[in-house]
């Protein structure tokens, strides 16, 4: 407590100084602009125009950043401003300390080293995949003062209200001398971060892979960029959305078949988002085979808010998919995307233009379904990817996997789901419902049960004294749960008890499943709340890998006509 108060007042002093300086200059309503100009002036000595050498990056940050600043270090689940994060880690602690990091992703080891070293103190973030275990340890150890774990869209929203960055450290592919930036296919968060920072008197520093005479297209106009640092090597991008078809199991294929027949076909879902698990990859690979034989082409899965998943290539090539808007890009997909501009959003240069904020909004408001995997589901349908030793964050799933209460446009699946949930209200006044589907096998990775009586997230919240347990998707948003045991339609449940038994009814041989009320589950099945594979006319023995349109990464390359260039870690040739 003491430490926090001390730095708090220290921070306050700094601001008072700025305010006094502002007062002397008689511009008392433009203090922040003056402070911004002073920061830029302090950094200008290290720059030729806007260009700063990589070796001077740390000195630039020392000149521009003030103790206690809110800093957005661009990093999400894919691209990383890795040079700038290393540079920030090396600052003189007497000049830069106690920063408040406001960033989408805590992904690189350096992101947490900042807190170990004392460069940063407070954290507001959305996603921490590979650092999920270490961030949990550091939170328990008190090394990080946690603001909150957000969804992407929520954090972006707060950039414009109460978490506006003083300094943004971003990543782009190339810049021209004026500072126009080309972010390439991985535009992702950059426009949002820059918008919030540059238009509220903040300083924008970009690391770029190269400086060119003319950028291929302008993703960020030069007047929003104050410094450019040329990196020796390209910024790091993680191929997070590539699922090797060779690793898809027959259990996952069965769940995919159940979802296609029991949900996609039942509601006629055309506009949707997929999670990144193997079950949804299996769905993508069953569209041109199993779903085609069911006569569903053109009736389902035509418009996506989705990253360029390689697993969707066979469906695209078979004419299933009309349009995809993307949060980010995917390593190896650039040439394929260029050649398929009817499907993807591309710039005048031909390459993909992604935008995480817009795509999250599209997933929230313009999609009728989200389907994804999780690690734990409780008896109310709450789901979480948090375990007692790992805090993975949320990323975007809660935005896709939430009923958009502000939605007003009708669509067939939305209205049908709404009618199932509330059959008695007059149709004209009845809200529709977004389909929010959790899919997985009853026993997941390493035979850990998917279903639990109580989420680990609650224990974590108690240990860390959080006001909210980190729940990824709230039970009242979940409409369906799919396992190899069948499909549970929670829209048709009328009481909490029915809901619990519907969930237990598809939980198989997990402890949760074995404690089901057999009579009630049988009754729910008669009502169609639970539909077993045989109720859907699916023989589990038909769930065979030969159903997959591609069974290996190499098959995907073949489907793409050689345009998909998988990264080396996914090759077996």
């Amino acid at each position, binding site marked *: 407590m003491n430490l926090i108060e001390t730095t708090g007042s220290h921070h306050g002093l700094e601001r008072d100084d700025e305010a006094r300086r502002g007062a002397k200059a008689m511009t008392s309503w433009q203090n922040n602009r003056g402070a911004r100009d002073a920061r830029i002036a302090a950094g200008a000595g290290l720059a030729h125009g806007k260009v700063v050498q990589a070796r001077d990056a740390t000195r630039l940050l020392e000149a521009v950043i003030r103790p206690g600043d809110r800093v957005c270090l661009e990093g999400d689940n894919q691209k990383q401003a890795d040079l700038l994060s290393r540079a920030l880690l090396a600052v003189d602690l007497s000049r830069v300390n106690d920063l408040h990091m406001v960033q989408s992703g805590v992904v690189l080891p350096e992101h947490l080293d900042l807190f170990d070293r004392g460069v940063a103190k407070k954290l507001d973030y959305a996603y921490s995949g590979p650092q999920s275990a270490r961030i949990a340890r550091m939170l328990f150890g008190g090394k990080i003062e946690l603001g909150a774990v957000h969804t992407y869209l929520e954090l972006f929203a707060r950039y414009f209200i109460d978490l506006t960055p003083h300094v943004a450290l971003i990543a782009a592919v190339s810049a021209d001398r004026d500072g126009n930036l080309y972010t390439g296919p991985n535009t992702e968060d950059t426009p949002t971060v820059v918008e919030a920072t540059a238009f509220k008197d903040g300083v924008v520093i970009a690391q770029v892979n190269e400086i060119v005479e003319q950028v291929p297209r302008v993703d960020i106009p030069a007047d929003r960029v104050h410094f450019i640092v040329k990196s020796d090597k390209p910024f790091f991008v993680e191929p997070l959305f590539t699922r090797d078809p060779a690793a898809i199991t027959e259990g996952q294929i069965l769940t995919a078949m159940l979802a296609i027949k029991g949900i996609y076909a039942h509601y006629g879902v055309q506009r949707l988002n997929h999670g990144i698990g193997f079950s949804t990859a299996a769905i993508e690979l069953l569209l041109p085979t199993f779903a085609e034989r069911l006569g569903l082409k053109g009736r389902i899965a035509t418009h996506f808010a989705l990253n360029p998943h390689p697993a969707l290539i066979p469906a695209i090539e078979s004419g299933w998919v009309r349009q995809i808007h993307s949060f980010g890009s995917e390593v190896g997909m650039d040439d394929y995307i260029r050649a398929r501009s009817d499907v993807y959003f591309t710039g005048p240069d031909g390459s993909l233009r992604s935008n995480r904020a817009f795509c999250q909004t599209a997933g929230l408001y313009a999609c009728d379904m989200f389907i994804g995997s999780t690690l734990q589901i409780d008896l109310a349908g709450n789901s979480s990817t948090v375990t007692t030793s790992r805090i993975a964050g949320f990323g975007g799933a809660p935005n896709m996997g939430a009923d958009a209460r502000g939605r007003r446009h009708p669509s067939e699946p939305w209205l049908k789901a709404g009618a199932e949930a509330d059959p008695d209200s007059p149709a004209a006044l009845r809200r529709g419902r977004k389909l929010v589907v959790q899919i997985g096998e009853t026993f997941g990775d390493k035979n850990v049960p998917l279903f639990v009586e109580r989420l680990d997230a609650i224990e974590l919240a108690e240990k860390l004294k959080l006001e909210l347990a980190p729940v990824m998707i709230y039970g009242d948003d979940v409409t369906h749960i799919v396992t190899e045991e069948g499909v549970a339609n929670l829209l048709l449940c009328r009481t909490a008890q029915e809901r619990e038994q519907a969930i237990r009814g598809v939980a198989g041989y997990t402890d949760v499943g074995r404690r089901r009320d057999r009579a009630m589950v049988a009754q729910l099945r008669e009502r169609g709340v639970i539909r077993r594979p045989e109720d859907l006319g699916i023989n589990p023995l038909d769930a065979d890998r030969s159903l997959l349109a591609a*069974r290996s990464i190499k098959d995907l390359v073949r489907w793409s006509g050689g345009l998909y260039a998988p990264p*080396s870690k996914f*090759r*077996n040739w």
Partner: protein
Amino acid sequence: MTASLDDVARAQRARRTSFNEASARTRLELMLDAGSLVEFIGPEQREVSPHLRIFDLPEQFDDGIVVGHARLEGSPVFVAAQEGRFMGGAFGEVHGAKLTGLLRAAREIGSIPVLILFDTGGVRLQEANAGELAIAEIMRAVMEARTAGAKVIGLIGGRSGCYGGGGLIAGCCSALAVSEPGRIAVSGPEVIETNRGVEEFDSRDRALVWRTMGGKHRRLLGAADVFADDTVQDFREAALELIGLVGAFGPDRLKAEHERLAGRLRRFGTCKDAVDIWTAEGVADAETVPDLPADRFIALADRIGRTSRDAR
């Protein structure tokens, strides 16, 4: 007549079944003449590993290998198939003894060829010495069977590759067929990286792993004599081709094999990467080899690829 109809159905399935993905039993079922397999020491006898239970590890009733006799295009063969999905296909005491016994039977009879469908990461660490001894016994048994006149053909295209002691045994065989996903080596990628550092060998660079240990490289080097596309039917045809090609075995042939290997080391010993070797072998655009489809690669390999047909 019914037998031949069964074989037509078998061949149809074998043509669309990936050898790489199939289980050991499916590989045998679809590769051999329909219904001809007679298993020795089958799972009903429950000859399980005496070591795994000490480590509280699951056992398998066949200990991860199927051995037996069968017919291939009407002629008798001995067969052994490792199950790569059980303990990575690794050799343990019982697993090894079953293969040793099969090879000794081949030695006694002398004229029946042996097909070994490798799918192994090497020796089962939990069975340490027993596993290592099994490798030595099998290598001796391979050489004795060959000396007695039996051809021993290795077929490599499973998910676990052919590593460790499996790589040594493969080196003793009369001939090998390999597919693109198949890998042949002694030390695996992770072992090399652990011992020699990531600068020496980056095990996560899978393109590097495959061009160093994968089927195409092994075929171009002459370590494997036939390149099979990844279907069970292709491996069947490769086995038939090799049974027809392999000549008699004796000291002269062994000397020729040593000369072949010494010559290979002289020619390529200074090459830093497989691409350098392929270039030295006269492959134009050597870096495109990994991307070649099977038919074009086979044409290339037949044109410039070496074989060990005069040696081994």
